[in-house]
């Protein structure tokens, strides 16, 4: 049997569609140039010096005590954050899906908690942590009267990271719990198992791959996190901060490249386990929808403690975020708690306006490009068959496993002297365009993932019918696919904007004095100890991102297609 004829016919049909072909070419070039090439440069830098392949750079880096400590620190931090975030996420998800929550207030609280990390810059919690529990912290000094409180170090980073990442686990596990058929649990209950036994013998085993999945995702996030360890790490250096300091402090970018390779290998291995092992396992154990709604647990001995526990945790998170605007409004944190607008005035008088303008403009350019690109990738991956498909899918997902710091170093090594140090495309380095590219690459995986899952729900014959009636690929994409995933496109647009405007880890390495970015300003001010100004920036930033999300929700409510299409 030979499939040669169909293969050659498919090829002919494929090349009969020039728009499709050129689209794929552009995409492949983009992915090669802006994701794979910078990473390749890191490898070249760390294994290739003065014309020969050597391990010298690695030997040098490994002999640095600072690096070895940072590696250990990173792994310990990742484990703590991963485990704790998963457990707290599980608690929240379980309470939401299984326990009868009586109050509207609690429901709202859960909603807010899951939303906050999405709209806030990744490191504002560090700010409020310092302001609440630091040396001149509101709680430690003012209320408890502790004068030598030290919030910096592992403890501080871990708490902040857990609070930032557990909502992600909560959302992931909630979706999984929803898919467990309640009749499985009812059947075991019926056979005489206690609630605890049902949880340990049915729910937990079914959820295990999902828990592993959530753990790895947070582990990767924690390891890749740059801003929190930077702000609250003190002398607890992680790989991300060490790499940053290696470039900005020691001016040793080959050393930083080698360190980046180590960090990248770590996240990449975890990512591959997560993507190709656990994700499949989750899908096979939990397929299909629950046949009917679950009877919530009403037993007070279960509901009361769980609800109280969750409410306290949620309230704590909310208070942490509320601290940010107050940090900006108080005259002098730790000494004078009277309200004033002086930090805001100071912010706008110095570089505030320019920072907001630059951040917003760059993000506004990056967001639609990201959204469109991720929708095109999803369309190609889900709906078309061609040889480079697996490559496109893999590379655009790979970007998820690349820590921002690593990407930043890759861009420095890859573009500071042009592509392969030939001077080609050298003009890119130091411009706004390279920042936009980084924004796009950093948000592409999220957008693509949501686009793929949206497209998988669309009956393939709908697009086939358009194709059959005479539309070419571009036509099908524009008149059928895109309108049907309008919601996903819109939310991709806003997510990309929010992610771009709150990004820091990669851009802090690439930004030039020509551009000021809000996040870099916050970092700079916080490092100097000007928490009032930092909080003022953070407050305005949260307001911007929050209102963007609100606008998007309103647009989807009014113009969204899904509602009219999907209700049968």
């Amino acid at each position: 049997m030979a499939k040669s004829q169909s293969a050659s016919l498919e090829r002919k049909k494929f090349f009969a569609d020039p728009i499709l072909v050129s689209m794929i070419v552009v995409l492949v070039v983009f992915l090669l140039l802006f994701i794979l090439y910078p990473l390749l440069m890191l490898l070249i830098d760390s294994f290739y010096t003065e014309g020969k392949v050597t391990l010298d750079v690695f030997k040098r880096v490994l002999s640095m005590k600072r690096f070895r400590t940072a590696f250990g620190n990173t792994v310990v931090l990742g484990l703590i954050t991963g485990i704790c975030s998963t457990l707290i996420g599980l608690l929240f998800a379980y309470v939401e899906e299984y326990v009868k929550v009586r109050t509207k207030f609690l429901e709202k609280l859960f909603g807010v908690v899951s939303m906050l990390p999405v709209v806030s810059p990744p490191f504002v919690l560090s700010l409020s942590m310092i302001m609440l529990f630091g040396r001149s912290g509101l709680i430690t000094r003012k209320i408890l009267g502790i004068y030598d409180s030290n919030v910096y170090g592992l403890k501080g980073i871990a708490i902040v990271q857990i609070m930032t990442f557990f909502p992600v686990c909560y959302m992931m596990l909630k979706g999984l719990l929803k898919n467990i058929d309640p009749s499985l649990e009812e059947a075991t209950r019926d056979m005489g198992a206690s609630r605890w036994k049902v949880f340990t013998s049915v729910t937990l085993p079914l959820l295990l791959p999902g828990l592993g999945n959530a753990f790895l995702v947070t582990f990767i996030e924690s390891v890749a996190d740059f801003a929190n360890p930077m702000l609250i790490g003190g002398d607890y250096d992680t790989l991300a901060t060490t790499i940053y300091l290696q470039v900005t402090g020691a001016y040793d970018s080959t050393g930083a490249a080698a360190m980046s390779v180590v960090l990248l290998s770590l996240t990449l291995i975890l990512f591959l386990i997560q993507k190709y092992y656990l994700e499949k396992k989750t899908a096979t154990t939990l397929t299909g929808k629950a046949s009917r709604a679950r009877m919530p647990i009403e037993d007070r001995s279960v509901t009361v403690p769980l609800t109280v526990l969750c409410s306290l945790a949620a309230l704590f998170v909310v208070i942490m975020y509320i601290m940010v605007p107050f940090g900006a409004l108080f005259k002098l944190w730790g000494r004078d708690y009277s309200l004033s607008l002086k930090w805001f005035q100071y912010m706008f008088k110095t570089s505030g306006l320019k920072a907001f303008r630059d951040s917003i403009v760059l993000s506004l350019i990056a967001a639609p490009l990201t959204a469109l690109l991720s929708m095109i990738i999803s369309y190609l991956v889900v709906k078309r068959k061609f040889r480079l498909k697996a490559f496109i899918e893999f590379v655009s997902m790979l970007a998820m496993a690349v820590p921002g710091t690593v990407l930043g170093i890759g861009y420095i090594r890859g573009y500071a002297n042009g592509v392969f140090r030939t001077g080609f495309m050298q003009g890119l380095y130091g411009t706004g365009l390279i920042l936009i590219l980084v924004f796009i690459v950093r948000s592409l995986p999220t957008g693509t993932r949501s686009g793929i899952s949206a497209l998988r729900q669309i009956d393939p014959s709908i697009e086939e019918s358009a194709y059959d009636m005479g539309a070419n690929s571009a036509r099908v994409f524009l008149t059928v696919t895109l309108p049907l995933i309008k919601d996903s496109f819109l939310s991709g647009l806003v997510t990309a904007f929010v992610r771009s405007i709150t990004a820091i880890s990669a851009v802090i390495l690439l930004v030039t004095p020509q551009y000021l970015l809000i996040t870099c300003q916050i970092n700079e001010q916080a490092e100097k100890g000007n928490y009032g100004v930092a909080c003022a920036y953070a407050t305005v930033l949260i307001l911007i991102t929050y209102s963007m999300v609100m606008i998007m929700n309103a647009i989807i409510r009014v113009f969204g297609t899904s509602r009219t299409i999907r209700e049968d």
Partner: protein
Amino acid sequence: MAKEKKGVRLEHISKIYQDPKTKKEFYAVQDTTLDIEPGTFVTLLGPSGCGKTTTLRMIAGFESPDEGEIYLGGEPINALTPNKRDTAMVFQSYALLPHYNVFDNVAYGLKLRKVPKETIKEKVTAILKLVELEGMESRMTNQLSGGQQQRVALARALVLEPGVLLFDEPLSNLDAKLRVTMRTEIRKIQQAVGITAVYVTHDQSEAMSISDKIIIMSKGKVEQIGSPQEVYYHPNSRFVADFIGEANFLDAKVESVSGENADIVVAGQRLTVRNHTHIPAGKEAVLVLRPEACGLGKEGLLDCEVTLSTFMGSYQYYHALVGNKTVQITDYNPVNKTIYKAGDKVKLNFDPNGVYIL
């Protein structure tokens, strides 16, 4: 109405698939040659997995054949993409564009062909009248019933006046009653328009009621091609006899052959039947009996014993043991007939010219 009725010819078409689990390749369609005359209604009929949908999708261009060539109106079309082929398909799930209303759905293909606006309006109005959806132009498709969605899907394909109209199990999502109404209607419209139609179904009564010609497929191969009467009365294989309608199979041995007739022995009893498949003397064969062609009585051709007798309303349903084989019998309009009961030893009756051996 169709611009030009086109015939479809498949020449030694094969399609190879790979089993996703075992990675083994197999023929989804194997060496199939078909000739579909312009203007006829042809049905591809077979159980699921027999290759009928794959064949249809190869004609539409969604799949590419691994061997052979497909011709549409005499032109080879293997290398053409679906959007360049003069075919229009009605999908199993209707595949209406959910973000368009009825009018825009039907007009979609015409707009792509840059037909002037007024002409589009005329054509769409005319076609919606044909499928009895006048006045529904501005409805969204999710506001329509299953039957109405089906009509939109049909209108949308018809309005393009394609050389051949393809149907992929279009009625399988409708309830039983509507299915019967819609199939009559599809046939009526096809004849009014005079278009070539290729129709895929696994429902044999649907295939019989709608087609000029039925192509019965099994395991990727064509089993038989013929008019509904031909495949029902003269199936050329046990598979076809079993698949189309109900059939009893009795092992038989051909004793002697004389002209069109043969003497056979069934369960130790001798009888003479027609031998249109020309089985030579001395060969093993099967006697095929349709349940409705059989009756029970004091007189008859084969001895049997009733083992089950059930009143079904329009007929009496029997099981009767002939030798060691159970034969099903449906005796229609039983009101004034003798009803036998289990244990009765009677005779099995049928018209020896109306049955056949394989």
